[in-house]
């Protein structure tokens, strides 16, 4: 799959996961990795960019075992962005599916 396209999809998945609850890096990576094969190193760059764009805020939380974990929390701006992404995705996937079905019928 096109890496740029894949990156966009993974970005949306990350946003969708963090919308549900605050998560830390490893947790996010594993949550996506259990659905699909991903290059785990690519998640952090996306997380950093989304944080810089103020879709997330981060905070450190002490863990009972091992070092503190950096948690990502979604901001209102992030929620808005995810909403627009979701809409775009629905439209796009519907369009693609229509075309694919059309091809099968013909």
């Amino acid at each position, binding site marked *: 799959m096109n890496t740029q396209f894949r990156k966009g999809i993974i970005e949306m998945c990350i946003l969708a996961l963090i919308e549900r609850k605050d998560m830390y*890096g490893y947790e996010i990576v594993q949550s996506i990795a259990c659905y699909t094969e991903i*290059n*785990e*190193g690519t998640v*952090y*760059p996306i997380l*950093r*960019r989304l944080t810089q764009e103020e879709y997330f805020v981060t905070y450190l939380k002490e863990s009972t075992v091992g070092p*503190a974990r*950096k948690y990502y929390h979604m901001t209102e701006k992030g929620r808005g962005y995810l909403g627009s992404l979701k809409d775009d995705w629905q439209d796009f996937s519907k369009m693609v599916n229509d075309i694919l079905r059309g091809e099968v019928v013909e």
Partner: protein
Amino acid sequence: MNKQEYLEKLEACLKHKLSREEIEDIMRDYAEYFEEGRRQSKQDVEIAAKLGDPELVAQQLIEESAEQGAEHYIPPRSGEKKNPWEAAKETFKDLENRFLEWDRGKAEKSDAEAAPPEQPEEAPQPKPEKEPKQKTKKPHNALQKLWKRFSCSMGHLCQWWFCALSSVVLMTALSCLSAVWISLSAFVLAVLLVGLAGAVALALGLLAMIILSGVVGWGLGTWAGASMLFGSLAGIGLDVLAAMLVWFLLKRWKLWTARAYRKTKGLWKRLLHKVESWLVTPREPAAQETQAEQTASQPEQTASQPELMALPQTTPVPTEPAEREEEQR
């Protein structure tokens, strides 16, 4: 590749391309990732393999950072360099920008002042008036640009010169110190070795005296022989004690010098890195570099393609003799 190696490689790839704070933050993130993986009883090698090549990860981090920078304006990374020349250059640039803005504002004002008397009926009229003004501005701008470039390069030159000079001074000082240190340690080592050799020679001499004491005792009387025997025995005892002391000192010295050597080595390494970072100034925009890297990596890909194409052609070759043999049978 273990955690340490992975993080070091990643850091090396990011150096000079992102700010120090950013790199530290990234290092923290990836260290946390390794720790979490270890907690799930995964091997470092496994985690590193899943993360992917650190060079690629670094490239992605830089790209994402550049992408972000294209969408939103980030102020120039102040954390990277805090030397006075850079600051002076920045303030100069700022002043110049302000002046240009002010100048432009004034020019527009004068245009606006010039326009009203001619009434809005003739709208296209102000245009020809603006053009000559821009024309007269052009040489001014070119001069300004030249001046700007000149001052920037002078700033760079001075900065470079200052850094080179200070690095030479530092290196010379450290070289002198190192030389003094090496000669001192060699001297002490030589003294201790001579002491040890002396102790051994003394012990041999005293042993010879024990044998001699028998001859002396036979020739001069028992008492003289006995006193010589006991004297040399006591001498040997003392000598062994002294030799042990020297041996102990030698061991300590070796330990101490090894530690000091390691420390000075670290110091040298750090100094060289520092000098390198001074003299090889980082190029600021990461976007250009990533583009250059992309263009550089493309020929590699195209170069590897012929190899891939060549593989299927070569593989059938070994099967041919086998087929021939079968045919012969």
